[in-house]
């Protein structure tokens, strides 16, 4: 049984998805069946991940606990699943954020089982992607992880849904196809499936090598909010109001970032690595553009999206730096970052729900009547932009100092983008807390429920512990 732990991390949510999809469709199904399944699946997964943490050596950086499964004998293809501290940390962050989402799931599932089913499907596939240790299974999970979001956009999208869906599918499918081509060339060059960490040792002809690596990077870029692929994600974030769908949409870029992390800098061929500055320029251009747009944009959700974009791209620049020492810092940052985004998204959704219920024209001053929501939003926005109580603070500090070390101009532009996006969030926070704008109707406003509030405070405690010791939960 202990040899199948990683497989279980992938399978448990998928089995949960089958349960939720086939649950009896009654009025109370959400509370009685689906809701319980989601929460228990996530709790089981988190426990499993913590147990796996206790089995591995956290001082080592390479992939450990490799599991091998036979799949196709005719090609032949064996699946390799493996975990390192970085991937486990991300897995823990993702599963934890969906557990937080699980506690609020009841409010946002409307009358459909689609959302919890897609959520569990997404978690299972994302877990598989993070644990994949060979090129074929890496591709399979990479391509499959977009399926739940396609389903959710088609169901929860509002205006321009069709256009968004077409663009999202187009970018993602082209990306996936390019990745498949690259991976099959790699597979053919060795006449077999190869582990991810040895992908750079292949001896390919120059033109083929260029094709393979460019395909890989275009595939990863297609999942990130990076020019010229940024359109789909900004459209999703400005039209999808459901917080769980918002989180899923915001975790898709993590798929691209993780792809870069797995192949760069150790695995990528030297002839391709020289193009890293080009990626840096594109990242900076996108970051500044989105940060500036967020300043003038009136929607809070767009500002959160701008924040996530800028930070994802900072991590990408960190990955592209000619050093492998930042990997763990990026991992620690991402762990906090995913949790912060989740709490921000859910708190904002609660506020938006109240706005809709009370038929308010503007959100200005609404936090004056919502003390719990106000505390959560303030603390998590401050934590997001650099309050020194979470690991985001000092890990970002290290990443940015490395960027400065590498190129001063690049560092200044990164700081500028961070400043602009931080300013946009603080401006919005100020408006939400502005007493002079609070209309009298706000006396009927319902504050964040106590359960949710305590869950969010619990998240803050987790982040606080991680500030002092990132892997404090490993014994």
């Amino acid at each position, binding site marked *: 049984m202990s040899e199948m732990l990683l497989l279980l991390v992938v399978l448990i949510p998928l089995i949960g998805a089958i349960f939720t999809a086939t649950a009896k469709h009654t009025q109370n199904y959400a509370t009685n069946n689906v809701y319980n399944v989601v929460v228990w699946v996530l709790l089981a997964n988190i426990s499993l991940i913590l147990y796996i943490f206790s089995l591995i050596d956290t001082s080592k950086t390479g992939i450990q606990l490799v599991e091998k499964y036979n799949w196709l004998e005719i090609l032949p293809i064996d699946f390799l699943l493996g975990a390192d501290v970085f991937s486990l940390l991300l897995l823990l962050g993702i599963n934890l954020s969906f557990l937080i989402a699980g506690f609020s799931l009841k409010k946002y599932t409307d009358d459909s089982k689609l959302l919890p089913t897609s959520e569990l499907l997404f978690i299972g596939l994302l877990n598989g992607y993070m644990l994949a240790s060979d090129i074929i299974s890496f591709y*399979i*999970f990479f391509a*499959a992880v977009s399926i739940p979001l396609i389903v959710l956009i088609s*169901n929860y999208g509002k205006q321009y849904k069709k256009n968004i869906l077409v663009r999202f599918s187009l970018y993602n*499918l082209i990306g996936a196809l390019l990745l498949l081509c690259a991976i099959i060339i790699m597979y053919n060059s060795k006449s077999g499936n190869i582990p991810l960490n040895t992908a750079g040792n292949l001896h390919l002809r120059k033109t083929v090598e260029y094709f393979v690596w460019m395909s890989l990077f275009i595939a990863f870029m297609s999942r990130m909010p990076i020019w010229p692929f940024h359109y789909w994600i900004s459209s999703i974030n400005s039209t999808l109001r459901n917080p769980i769908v918002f989180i899923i949409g915001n975790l898709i870029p993590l798929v691209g970032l993780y792809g870069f992390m797995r192949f760069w800098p150790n695995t990528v061929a030297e002839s391709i690595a020289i193009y890293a500055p080009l990626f840096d320029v594109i990242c900076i251009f996108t970051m500044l553009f989105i940060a500036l747009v967020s300043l003038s944009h009136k929607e809070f959700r767009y500002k959160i999206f701008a924040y996530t974009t800028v930070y994802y791209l900072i991590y990408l620049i960190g990955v592209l730096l000619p050093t492998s020492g930042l990997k763990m810092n990026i991992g620690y940052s991402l762990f906090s970052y995913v949790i912060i985004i989740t709490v921000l998204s859910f708190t904002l959704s609660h506020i938006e729900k109240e706005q809709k219920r009370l038929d308010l024209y503007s959100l200005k001053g609404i936090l004056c009547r919502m003390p719990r929501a106000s505390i959560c939003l303030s603390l998590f926005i401050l934590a997001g932009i650099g309050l020194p109580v979470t690991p985001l603070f000092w890990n970002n500090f290290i990443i940015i100092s490395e960027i400065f070390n590498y190129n001063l101009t690049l560092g200044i532009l990164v700081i500028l983008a961070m400043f602009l996006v931080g300013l946009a969030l603080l401006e919005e926070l100020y408006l939400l807390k502005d007493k002079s704008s609070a209309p009298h109707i706000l006396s009927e406003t319902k504050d964040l429920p106590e359960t949710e509030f305590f869950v969010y405070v619990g998240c803050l405690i987790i982040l606080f512990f991680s500030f002092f010791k990132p892997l404090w939960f490993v014994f």
Partner: protein
Amino acid sequence: MQQLLINSLPEIALIIGVLHLLFLYITANESTRNYVSAARFWLLISLLGSIIFYDKSLYPGYFQNNAYTFLWITIIDILTYVLLEVSASWFLSQSKTGCRYYMLLLLATLNINIWLTATDLLVLGLSGLLMIIINYYFLKIDYDKQQTQSSSLLYIKVLMMVFLLLGISYAYIYSWMGNTSYGALKEFIEINQSNPLVFATFTGVIVFFLCFLGIAPFHILAEEKTGKSILPVAHYFAIVMPLALWGVFIKINLIIFPFYAPIITKSYLIFGLLSVIFGAIGANARINLHRIYAYSSLYHFGIILLLLSLGNMSAIFIAYLYLLTYILGLNGAYLTFYSLKSHGEYMSSVTALSGLAKTRPYTMGVLLISLFSLMGLPPLAGFLGQIGFIHEMLNTTPACVWC
């Protein structure tokens, strides 16, 4: 004689099935349930016979059963069974008995058995002719008496013209060697492969199949078959017919291909690429779901032809895998059409799908899974075909992968 009867049990069961349906019709026992039960029973007997006597043949000189034919016949029988099951609800909702449809379906299955097991060009040609006639009558099933008249006429006109090519080819080969069994054909081509007339003869055979399959640029009938016909007929044309045609076509290719590989490779490559392009563009320009699937078939058949153009056994195996996963995916999509009913009318437009997730979540789930499989997304079956196709293409012709 006794052995002959036993060996031909699958075919005899289907003939009895047709007679049984005819008897029910004559005795005015007109009920969809009766027709379906009778057709189902005889189809199962036929399938059982095919499984038990999988390597026994009717007339070994003209027919040959082996593992290859057994595989195709079994899959086709299973899909026909599914068709029988689901079409009943359609006929019941339209207050029709569907007697003609079920008789034609059993006849088509019988003919497909003969077609697949044939080892003689004469049998192949005659069963091809019979197939055209059966399909013509399938297309004529139209309760509005308007819609499919033009389609069925066009179908029989075009295919009869193409059948002439097959007839001429047969006449030429027969006049030359007096024997048209596949074994003799092989020897004949080997000796006369440089003769342009012999090549033209076999081109006629191949063009007949390409037309029948609707491969571009012979795709004039691609939309007509499934776009205008009633749902159970469209289902038959989309699932059962292509499977049978590919089964026979691949078999013919295994005989002819080795001798004309350089020319066939190039022709298949061009036709395959054309089908892929026309299929992809055509599907995007339609809103009727049946027509979209018709063009999607054109695209997928193009892929299969590209695989066949490689001419090696592993490519043929991948082509088979691709076809099977494609047919399974498409069958799933077609099954959902039987649920798309509003005010007694079966919907066929893309707009009919809006809000389906709310009203029929399971139908939508099946449709989504089928569509994702058709797109080749992992971890669904269609991915196996896609990975196999790209793997084969990258191994041989890297440029083709872009389609």
